[in-house]
């Protein structure tokens, strides 16, 4: 082992222990948001609009209120401040449109909440919800971004249907395109996608000591501030506790049950539980943005890109949610891991009367992968170069400028990930049977980790060495199931030398934990990992002075390992408990709070130049597919993925993130589609929304590059979101290789593949009949 950033060989980092929450999970003893009962608890239910666009001419709650067992029926009139506000994005003014908690006089999407009820049983709550009589006068709506931007389109909001437009400009695109040896053009479309975490939105709320407390499945406990605003309560009187989530993927980044639970608890003064039905979740929870992307790419004859012109339009649905930031990430990552000296990128979020789109693993930076990789394949085919060759020629390297004018200050190992992913696949496949075409595809990506830089991100963590030598960590981090809390324990164990079993971590409580800023944007290993690393290192420095004194050594000679502090490998040692006692005698605190700050910067939305994200994770996927020319069915034969994670804190969890992300991506590429028709969600049942099952796809083979140059703790890069981004591009690339026509619309269903097969110029057919 080599000496490391900590001055000693890693003992815990780089290993894959099963940690506390995983033991609870395989025991089945972990208590999720729905697994909490309190005496006198009521059951809450949201009444939702059955139509996508209408004026509310009246709401009659008398019958619902009269039903025995009903305790509350609330409408917009019962809410002190009926707005869910989003903080504006950098450089832009405050968003003019706020989403109401409950619609007052107008509904803008199917599933929009209009009333909320609480009753003594779930059945009575359901019945009461049915009895709430709402008069809807239907209004014309807009259901796709193109009609929403047409002259005279019905307005979703009075301010107009374009929510936000971002522009990034560098060089002279028009001149560079005119001078290019080749120009390839593509128009790409993606669909509405459901997160489909297996744990539906849920929570329980109660009043305790005058504090409104919610125990919910959420990625962000900081929503406590928004809840306080809605109820016009002091922020100190609202507490949010996040449970370990049964999956989130961005879908629990906006509030889900929180404001409705809060209203019911506040009005009834009783505990309330709310669980959204799966069917309700399918219809009304936020989705991944459908994107329409138009790309023009100019290149020299040798494949060197000279210019790229990009237009991206995202369907925001009926309310802003996080659309401005999603479309910003799309613009900032529109050119992928490639050097583009002349770029003109425009991205817009457009209101429609569809279900709101918001955060979903990849956050805009993943949809664009289909387009920028599709362009690379078109370029390769046009120039007669291999797919790998044309990519190699254009990969970014450390020190390069992005179209925003930022200079990359960490290494870019995307080439290595590509070579390794292809090496995993080995020999190209043979057609499994006559009537089948086979192909191999690759997809590279660049996905940010960490929040947009203008938010001046920070995270705090508190550590304590207990009198018996065990360790406590307190952090406001929330855990989606990716091991966010467990990674913090591994980092603390590494620095303090405490056995992992001696470390407990308390997370996800807005009242008791130092704020960590929510789990999203692949930011928690980067942010809270660094916060814990600093807290532990600073605590160690303080107590090392005492240990050195006890051991007759110097602080920098000490080694913290196995629950002890050693003067040198063969020399004397003391236990952490003895050290804690010695600190206590000297009145030296063994608890420590640290705050870690991400780098900051600014972005000018007028020039499209400035700072965007702290850093990126790069990776490549490669796949072999077989296409049945009779049915259009695509079979994924083999699938390989490789990402540079900087340093793998827990290699097994890294593999798990990559395998799981790739599998979600396979569903997105080939099957998943919420199919929103004229504002009506067609997939009303989970049986109609096909997420991958154990039989649909092969194992995802994983290789990991550890460049050691990330900005996370000990050189780590984030890996939560990145591995979903490559997949659709990789499969599209493989299909194009097989059939000679480039797919550009998701999901790539058999019907769409058959249509592409019909477009094949017969000259390029390469059917195999062996």
């Amino acid at each position, binding site marked *: 082992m080599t000496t490391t950033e900590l001055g000693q060989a890693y003992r815990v980092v780089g290993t894959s222990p099963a940690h506390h929450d995983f033991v609870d999970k*395989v025991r*089945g003893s*972990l208590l999720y948001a729905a697994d909490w*009962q309190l005496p006198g608890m009521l059951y809450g239910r949201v009444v939702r609009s059955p139509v996508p666009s209408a004026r509310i001419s009246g709401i009659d709650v008398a019958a619902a209120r009269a039903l025995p067992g009903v305790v509350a029926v609330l409408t917009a009139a019962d809410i002190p401040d009926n707005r869910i506000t989003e903080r504006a994005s950098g450089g832009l003014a405050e968003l003019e449109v706020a989403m109401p908690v409950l619609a007052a006089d107008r509904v803008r999407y199917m599933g929009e909440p209009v009333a909320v009820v609480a009753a003594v049983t779930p059945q009575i709550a359901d019945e009461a919800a049915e009895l709430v009589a709402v008069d809807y006068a239907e209004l014309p709506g807009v259901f796709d971004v193109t009609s929403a931007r047409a002259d005279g389109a019905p307005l979703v909001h009075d301010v107009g249907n374009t929510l936000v437009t971002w522009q990034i400009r560098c060089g002279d695109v028009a001149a560079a395109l005119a001078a290019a040896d080749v120009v390839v053009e593509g128009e790409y479309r993606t669909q509405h996608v459901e997160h*489909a975490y297996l744990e539906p939105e849920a929570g329980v709320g109660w009043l305790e000591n005058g504090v409104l407390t919610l125990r919910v499945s959420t990625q962000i406990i900081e929503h406590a501030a928004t809840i306080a605003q809605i109820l016009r309560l002091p922020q100190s009187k609202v507490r949010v506790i996040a449970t370990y989530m049964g*999956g989130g993927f961005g879908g629990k980044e906006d509030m889900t049950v929180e404001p409705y639970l809060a209203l019911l608890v506040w009005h009834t003064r009783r505990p309330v539980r709310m669980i959204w039905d799966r069917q309700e979740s399918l219809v009304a929870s936020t989705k991944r943005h459908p994107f329409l992307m138009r790309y023009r790419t100019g290149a020299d004859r040798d494949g060197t890109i000279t210019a790229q012109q990009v237009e991206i339009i995202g369907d925001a649905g009926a309310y802003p949610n996080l659309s401005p930031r999603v479309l910003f990430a799309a613009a900032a990552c529109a050119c992928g891991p490639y050097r583009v000296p002349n770029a003109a990128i425009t991205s817009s979020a457009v209101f429609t009367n569809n279900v709101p789109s918001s955060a979903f693993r990849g956050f805009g930076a993943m949809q664009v992968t289909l387009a920028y990789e599709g362009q690379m394949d078109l370029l390769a085919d046009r120039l007669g170069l291999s797919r790998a060759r044309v990519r190699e020629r254009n990969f970014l390297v450390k020190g390069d400028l992005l179209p925003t004018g930022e200079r990359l200050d960490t290494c870019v190992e995307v080439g290595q990930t590509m070579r390794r992913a292809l090496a995993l696949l080995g020999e190209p496949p043979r057609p499994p049977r006559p009537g089948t075409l086979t192909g191999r595809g690759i997809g590279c990506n660049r996905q940010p980790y960490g929040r947009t830089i203008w938010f001046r991100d920070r995270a705090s963590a508190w550590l304590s060495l207990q009198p018996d030598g065990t360790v406590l960590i307190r952090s406001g981090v929330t855990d989606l199931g990716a091991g966010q809390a467990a990674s913090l324990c591994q980092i603390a164990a590494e620095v303090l030398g405490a056995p992992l079993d001696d470390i407990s971590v308390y997370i996800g409580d807005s009242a008791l934990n130092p704020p960590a800023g929510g789990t999203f944007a692949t930011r928690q290993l980067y942010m809270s990992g660094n916060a814990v690393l600093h807290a532990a290192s600073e605590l160690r420095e303080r107590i090392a002075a005492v240990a050195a004194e006890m051991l007759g050594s110097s602080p920098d000679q000490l080694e913290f390992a196995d629950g002890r502090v050693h003067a040198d490998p063969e020399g004397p040692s003391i236990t952490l408990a003895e050290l804690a006692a010695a600190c206590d005698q000297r009145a030296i605190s063994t608890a420590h709070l640290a705050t870690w700050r991400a780098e900051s910067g600014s972005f000018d939305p007028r020039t499209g130049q400035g700072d965007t994200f702290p850093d990126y994770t790069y990776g490549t996927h490669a796949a072999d597919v077989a296409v049945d020319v009779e049915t259009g069915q695509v079979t994924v034969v083999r699938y390989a993925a490789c990402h540079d994670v900087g340093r793998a804190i827990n290699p097994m969890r890294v593999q798990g993130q990559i395998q*799981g992300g790739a599998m979600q991506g396979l569903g997105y590429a080939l099957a998943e589609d919420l199919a929103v028709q004229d504002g009506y969600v067609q997939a009303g049942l989970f049986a109609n929304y096909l997420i*991958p099952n*154990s039989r649909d796809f092969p*194992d995802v083979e994983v290789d990991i590059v550890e460049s050691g140059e990330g900005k996370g703790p000990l050189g780590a890069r984030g890996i939560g979101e990145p591995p979903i981004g490559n997949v659709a591009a990789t499969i599209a690339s493989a299909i194009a290789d097989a059939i000679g026509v480039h797919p550009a619309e998701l999901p790539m269903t058999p019907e769409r593949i058959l249509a592409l097969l019909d477009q094949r110029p017969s000259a390029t057919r390469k059917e195999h009949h062996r």
Partner: protein
Amino acid sequence: MTKRRVVLDVNGRDHETWVQPSDTLLDVLHDQLGLADVRYGCGEGVCGTCTVLLDGEPVSGCLTLAVQAAGHRVTTLRGLMGPGDVLHPLQECFLRRGAAQCGFCTPGMVLTALDVVQRLGRPTREEIRDALVGNLCRCTGYTKILDAVEEYADLAAEP
């Protein structure tokens, strides 16, 4: 609706409870008996998070009425553990192989996997895939789950 008294044999113990004829086994196990290892995921019998063994066979708790379960042995994940909550060897394999992320699907997944190994002895990886088709996982991509079940099948097949 009038409630009726039923006795449910759950994890080797009789539980007397009052249920409505329309109450699902899922609702009664989760809300009345406090078994949080049986979970609502879809209510359609599609996702498998409410899987329990009924006389040893996997069923969806959301599609089974509580009254139908009377007179049958109901086993939830907790029922697999020995005295002092000692993990079942299959659970140990899940831990070792990192076969859980969010953990929401894990109880149903383990129960269905146990059933296929008990039925087929040493099922192939493909047979395990087929058996787990009704237990959805959105986090792991299944690979580590299949690894865990194969490891357990090897252990269980040892003489």
